[in-house]
């Protein structure tokens, strides 16, 4: 079973597709949770997901807006997609008949 941050990271990487790497995933997560996301949490979670076989990472090409530095590209594996789908289904199941409308921000 995934952790909630692992799920956020997998989902952000899946949404970004070919453009998924550290900075874009971080921006995507920060937009979603409306809080800052630490780079330490991001990179250690990426390592954990990679160790579990849920993502594959590799070094991409350097770009000028990154000061000529490479990106750590992220691809979600089929195993990662299944794990994220299971997590999402579990959240849906546990949330049935529960209305959080009153607590909506």
């Amino acid at each position: 079973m995934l952790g909630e941050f692992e799920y956020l990271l997998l989902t952000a990487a899946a949404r970004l597709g070919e453009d998924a790497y550290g900075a874009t995933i971080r921006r995507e997560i920060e937009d979603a949770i409306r809080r800052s996301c630490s780079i330490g949490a991001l990179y250690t979670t990426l390592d954990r997901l990679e160790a579990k076989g849920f993502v594959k990472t590799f070094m991409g090409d350097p770009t000028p807006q990154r000061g000529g530095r490479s990106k750590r590209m992220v691809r979600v594996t089929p195993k990662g997609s299944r794990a994220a789908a299971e997590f999402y289904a579990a959240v849906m199941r546990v949330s049935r008949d529960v209305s959080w409308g009153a607590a909506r921000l």
Partner: protein
Amino acid sequence: MNRICWWFVELVGRMLEPGERESVRGDFAEAGEAGGRALLGVLGLVVRRQMAPWNDWRPWLALVGIVVPVGAFLTLSATALSGGYVLSLWILENHAVIDPTVLRENGLSLKGGIAPLLQRSLLLACWSWCAGYAIGALSRRATWINASLFCLMLWAPEVLARPKADLSTDALLLPPILQVTLVLLPSLLGMRRALRVALIPAVLAILSAAALAASFTFPAVGGFPPASWRIGLLVAVCHWPLAYVTATGIAERWRSNPA
């Protein structure tokens, strides 16, 4: 201020793997991160990376089983050994003026004192190498933390407890010299060997086995028989890096040459 923060980001970032450092610095540049926030981010990542090996039990075993007890034991042994050297040097310096009967009556002789001193020095160096090797082999990526604590264990009693006044130059200089040459250097070499994941040289495996046997056989060398069961337990616990290196050396030879 911002430039200072970025200088620290560069400095702290050196503790990361080169690939990770590159991508993290690139992410900061792309996001236009402020220096202070980047510094906090990279510090957090470095702390997480350094703490990760401590999820395993092995670095803890090295800390509790070697760094603390063996570190203290080796320090005490080096201090005790330096007393022997100071005495031998004093006899050597004053040989012409000391009445030989005084030495004889007190069981002291230069000739009879040198061989055990050299024997104990060799044992101490071997013991230190084995302790360093075991720390490196068990700690792996946490070695630098355990190595720093080990050095602290070696030097703290010397710095904190030793009265500096009324001591001869020999008595002042010899303990730190012996600490460095017989404990610190061999243990650092042992750690380096373990981190290179190289085979234990046959001569060192044999030497550690001999040291293990010698420490139990010669009371003056290994502290046996102990004065009390508590000291005996401490000394016995301190033997395990020697046994570890001997067993690892034998196992490695066996695996590389099973026939």
